[in-house]
């Protein structure tokens, strides 16, 4: 047993402490801003690129950052890169849209019964590890040189990962939420659109992001491998051509465009969707 101790009361100070609530300094706020920190990192990377390239002094192997930016600016001004980028993006959207549509159909089929689910799982297990580029030779034989081959390969890149994510999203919906949805006497399509789709949306969005990243990489690679088939050719073709002519700063400019477009879609398009939906709903 501890000894009995006296009770105690304390006087509360109202003025001894100097800070109750004080605005943070601008520098501190800037440092707390993720975008600002990332911009700083990008700037540092650009500076070290510039320094290393100058020290190496071999523009054929590794052009400086300023040369690359100059080449990029020139190609944008001449309309070469915008044209190539527009072509690539157009192809990407076509393949992506068809891939999503097919993923939706496959998921619907998989959700209808056990055999469908087994089929989806088996197909995904088979085809997901298969790099899309590996299908390119086959696509060329089947569809010939042309947009169709590229779109076929893009669909392969998008379809499996999106379908898998969609399906697991639907399966992960809690039984409670399903029962709540059924309680209102909604029609079948209404139940799907207003309960199941939003409930599975976090997984669907993940699928969309993964599918997009796969598709973009696959497209650039496909353009590199079999170059121009019809039309003006895309970014991959642009990079390939500039390399053939030893315009190394332009090769870098092409690569930079691929990266910038990737960053833009990731940080502008998908981030915005995420903030407006899953983050706002606390469904992450």
């Amino acid at each position, binding site marked *: 047993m501890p000894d009995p101790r006296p009770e105690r009361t304390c006087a509360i100070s109202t003025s001894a402490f100097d800070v109750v609530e004080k605005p943070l300094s601008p520098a501190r706020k800037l440092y707390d801003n993720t975008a600002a920190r990332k911009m700083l990192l990008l700037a540092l990377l650009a500076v070290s690129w510039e320094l290393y390239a100058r020290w190496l002094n071999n523009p054929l192997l590794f052009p400086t950052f300023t040369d690359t930016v100059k080449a990029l600016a020139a190609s944008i001004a001449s309309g070469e890169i915008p044209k190539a980028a527009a072509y690539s993006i157009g192809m990407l959207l076509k393949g992506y849209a068809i891939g999503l549509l097919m993923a939706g159909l496959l998921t619907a089929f998989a959700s209808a019964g056990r055999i469908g689910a087994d089929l989806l799982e088996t197909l995904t297990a088979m085809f997901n590890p298969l790099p899309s580029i590996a299908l390119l030779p086959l696509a060329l034989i089947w569809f010939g040189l042309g947009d169709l081959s590229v779109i076929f390969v893009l669909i392969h890149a998008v379809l499996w990962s999106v379908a898998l994510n969609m399906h697991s999203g639907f399966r992960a919906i809690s039984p409670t939420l399903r029962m709540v949805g059924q*309680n209102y006497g909604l029609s079948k399509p209404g139940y799907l659109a207003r309960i199941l789709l939003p409930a599975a949306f976090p997984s669907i969005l993940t699928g969309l992001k993964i599918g997009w990243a796969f598709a973009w990489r696959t497209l650039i690679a496909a353009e590199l491998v079999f170059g121009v088939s019809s039309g003006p050719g895309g970014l991959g073709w642009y990079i390939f051509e500039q390399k053939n002519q030893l315009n190394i700063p332009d090769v870098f400019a092409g690569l930079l465009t691929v990266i910038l477009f990737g960053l833009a879609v990731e940080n502008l398009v998908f981030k915005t969707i995420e903030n407006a939906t899953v983050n706002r709903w606390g469904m992450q």
Partner: protein
Amino acid sequence: MHPAASARPLLEVEGVTLQYRTRDHLVTATYRVSFNVHASDRFVILGPSGCGKSTLLKAVGGYIKPVEGSVALNGTPIHSPGPDRIFVFQEFDQLLPWKTVEENIVFALTASGKLARREAVDRATDFIHKVKLTEFARNFPHTLSGGMKQRAAIARAMAMEPRILLMDEPFAALDALTRTQMQDELLQLWQDTKFTVLFVTHSIPEALRIGSRILLLSAHPGQVKAEVNAAGSDETRIESMLFDHA
């Protein structure tokens, strides 16, 4: 109340046997359970874990078909879930997470075709006020505490003005203090509108507090042991009826 209206029970459960399948077994949840719920009853189904009381409530909700017996509301057999029987679950995730508290209620009212949007918003505001969530009407569910989520779910269910409210241990996941408070609030709400509620619980004190009439089920499979009035019962009486193998 008209004598004719009170003569016919609102909900008739007649010899209901329920079974469900797990991975390895076919389980009989309840065996030939019968009871009647009258309008404005606070009817509690009380029993130990595994007596099939939640399954029974789901059968009334229309989510499960009895293998034997029948469930009828106002004389009409129940086949599927519908907005005349609104469920309140134990789980906190029963609010649609992509809608605010207010939108959850408005959606329930409009999706079921009960009200047009404008009236639905008015009624939602009204019921949100009743459960003291006015400040949080525009909040998304993930920003609310467990008790607030249950309040919102109760407001949503009551705003639907169902023939019968089905509550499956709605306060079981709450802390003791909040639970008592919510039980009082529910009784207060009942005083206002005298709704009919079928309430499932495994807690004897809760059954006595909430219920006006209590159905006692045995465990595994659930069979009716007794049906008693809450007034005139106490914990010892209920306990001995539930657990004595006389």
